[in-house]
């Protein structure tokens, strides 16, 4: 591993030795656990969301379920866990312990209140007991009380008010953690910023149902005969997380540091979040699946990638994909291409043929004698679905065609039906953008 690589990053003025943090969840539930995670290489922690002891917190049982895809385990985890069920005092002692023994690993206290005074109380007490930063949890999808959890994340004025009150009460930086259960995260993020938030983290879990019992018809987890729409996390939600981070990073008006969360398991996943604008990343489900040890591979993998590219500081990578991110109407539609097949490596499984026939342009003929596909170039839609199923990596690739090349139009089954169609051409003029 190259040693001139600097993975450290500044996040709201707080220094982390690498961008990899535990997110607020069971993986950050106690000092004993977090200490081990620091030993393994995690640079900081968002401690499991504190509660003020005002209401009893009891986790439903069982509290999680998961979604496998064939033999691929834990595509997603489904949870109905509440915020920390530990007494506030205990949590604060844990934070003090970590501060004392791991002074160079920042502690971010996640808090959640139900009304203004409670938010302020938790914020101050966290600061007084060593928190380097706060994360305001506006996003838990299954806290069921109005004015808490993701309900706040969807009520922008409330969110602004709580942020503002917390900001007034403490000196340390404040992150607002957003719910993905919303169309455009820029709106609540702007409200958080107006309230004074120094950074945004996203995403919390996505509301979902990942499995329903076929014997009892109870959505999972089955809490003694009852299921609920609850929080989905893990690799399945990564595209959603990347969407929100990228769209906030593109928003010049927002302009605050972002912490990316959602489905990160490897350095590649982490780097993708960084490339669309996150400067730290947080992980839960990846650890629920593999344990803290995955950070070793994140550190090593990212360092080697950077060394290979001649990039010495991870901050140089933040947002590097953003200049290449456009609205789809910017695409150059006069440039077209097709697939190309390196048939020397073909093993003849015919999956390309099946999917092209049933889901694309019928652009492949099947040579049953030799068990080989034969591409009819003018019919290839360049949808690329054949390359998704091909078991030989890189056998099917994309190539651009010359500008005078034309794709054949899809044939009409029976042109004699032309006389029977009832059609009036649409002639009205209108705007070229969709105005709502």
């Amino acid at each position, binding site marked *: 591993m190259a040693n001139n690589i600097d993975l450290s990053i500044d996040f709201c003025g707080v220094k982390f030795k690498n961008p990899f943090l535990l997110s607020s969840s069971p993986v950050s539930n106690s000092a004993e656990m977090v200490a081990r995670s620091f030993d393994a290489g995690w640079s900081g922690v968002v401690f499991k969301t504190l509660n003020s002891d005002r209401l009893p917190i009891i986790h439903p049982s069982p509290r999680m379920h998961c979604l496998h895809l*064939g*033999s*691929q385990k834990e595509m997603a985890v489904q949870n109905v866990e509440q915020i920390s069920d530990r007494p506030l005092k205990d949590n604060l002692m844990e934070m003090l312990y970590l501060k004392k023994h791991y002074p160079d690993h920042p502690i971010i206290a996640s808090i959640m209140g139900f009304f203004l005074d409670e938010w302020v109380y938790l914020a101050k007490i966290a600061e007084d007991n060593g928190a380097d930063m706060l994360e305001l949890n506006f996003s838990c999808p299954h806290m069921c009380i109005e004015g808490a959890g993701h309900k706040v994340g969807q009520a922008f004025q409330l969110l602004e008010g709580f942020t503002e009150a917390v900001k007034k009460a403490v000196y340390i930086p404040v992150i607002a953690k957003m719910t993905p259960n919303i169309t455009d995260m820029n709106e609540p993020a702007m409200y958080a910023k107006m309230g004074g938030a120094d950074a945004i983290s996203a995403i919390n879990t996505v509301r979902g149902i990942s499995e329903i019992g076929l014997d009892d018809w109870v959505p999972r987890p089955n809490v003694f005969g009852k299921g609920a729409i609850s929080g989905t996390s893990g690799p399945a939600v990564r595209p959603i997380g990347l969407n929100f981070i990228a769209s906030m990073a593109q928003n010049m008006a927002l302009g605050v540091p972002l912490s990316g969360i959602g489905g990160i398991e490897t350095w590649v996943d982490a780097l993708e979040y960084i490339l669309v604008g996150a400067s730290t990343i947080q992980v839960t489900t990846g650890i629920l699946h593999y344990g803290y040890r995955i950070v070793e591979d994140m550190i090593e993998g990212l360092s080697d990638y950077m060394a290979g590219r001649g990039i010495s500081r991870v901050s140089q990578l933040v947002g590097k994909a953003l200049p290449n991110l456009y609205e789809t109407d910017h695409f150059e539609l006069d440039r077209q291409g097709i697939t190309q097949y390196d048939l*020397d*490596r*073909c*093993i*003849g*499984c*015919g*999956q390309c*043929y*099946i999917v092209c026939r049933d889901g694309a342009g019928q652009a492949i003929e*099947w040579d*049953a004698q030799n*068990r080989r596909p034969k591409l009819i170039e003018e019919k290839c839609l360049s949808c690329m679905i054949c390359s998704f199923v091909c*078991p*030989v990596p890189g056998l099917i690739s994309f190539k651009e065609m010359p500008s005078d090349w034309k794709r054949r139009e899809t044939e009409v089954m029976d042109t004699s039906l032309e006389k029977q169609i009832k059609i009036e051409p649409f002639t009205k003029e209108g705007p070229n953008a969709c105005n709502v």
Partner: protein
Amino acid sequence: MSNADKFKQMSKGLDLAQAIFEADRCLLCHDAPCSEGCPADTRPADFIRKLRLKNITGAIRTIKENNILGGACGVLCPTARLCEEKCSAVFKSENRPEGADRPIQIGKIQRFLIEHAWQTGFKVFDEKPALRPEKVAVVGSGPAGLSCAAELAKDGFSVTVFEARPEPGGVLRYGVVSYRFDMNFFEHELNDIKELGVEFQCNSPIEGKEGAEKLLKDGFSAVFLAPGLWAAASLKPDAAGIDGLFSSVDYLAALRDGRFEEVEAKIKGKTVAVIGGGSVAMDCIMSAAKLEPKDVYLVYRRSYLQMPAESDELIEAQEEGVHFLLLNQPVDYVTDKSQRLKGLKLARTRLGAPDASGRRKPELIEGSQWILDSDVVIEAIGNQAPEDSTDWYPHVAVTDKKLIKADPNTGKTSVDGIFAGGDIVRGPALVVTAVADGKVAARAIREYLGN
């Protein structure tokens, strides 16, 4: 655990998670070579796809509807030269002949699915067919007979299986060693067939002059002959009285019909030689090797590459510590005064030109005779039709080896109403080919009796 107990159980198959893992590797080929490679048309590409798409009951249905002995075949098929031979998942192409992966373990998935059906109580054939008035007789309850009987019962015919031995199964019960295929497993599979309404009459050999033809007169509208090959070829037919000399047929049956301890006592601590190079010889030698002998020798007159046994069997035998005595031809037995076996007289051979089977022919080396001290010798040099077999079907045309001549597309013999299949037609073959023959004949019998 006693040896007898060790022999009673075969090793565990895949569990659900392992089967799904294996199905996940399948490429779901368009024109799947695995399905083309299955003699019984068990349709592996279909049942693997169904498993992959969580249609487990459908996968089981595909197997059982096409192969009533799907479980037995899953365990016993030499898949490396059947369904798995051309599996695309080995990633071979003309330009990459080396290949990079393993074939899908089709036999193992197939076995899992059938065991899963038994475990979950899923029944494929839960609807009774409309009954037909005709009765059909099946002679022999090996895989060919069972398959034909099941097919006909599914069509509503009333089927009676006549079996000479005390229990149904043929080689599945009295041949294959039980640690490869155990009776608990077989009873389940047999039960699937009994539930179709097939009637079994055991201890009922068809024999005597024109025994088979008589069935046609006794009210059976058609007869399927599947008696298999139960006479053991012998090096020296007059050597039968020697104490310590077994035929493979007798030795393997003894392991399974209550004579286990007797055989075990003969082998434990002794030197054992098995003559032969095929799969039956492998069953003999591997089972002997597990009975704590002093030494086990496999004696074969050609060389390694000419051995007809499956390559995984050969590798297993080597790993079990079997001494391969190749290029040695047995010529005689050495006994003491009381006819107790003392040794096997062997002569060295060299390989000459290829013979009719395409394998290089062994030639004796003059003056090379030597004696291998041995207490037990098992002859596994081929099963054949018994001398008197044609007595009970005298009008059925047979080959010079007494194999029945039957049309491969229908199983029809030279006698109207008599059909045949399995080893008695093909010579020593496989469970899955016997199943195929049973299906083919059943279809022909249905047509013969007017669809």
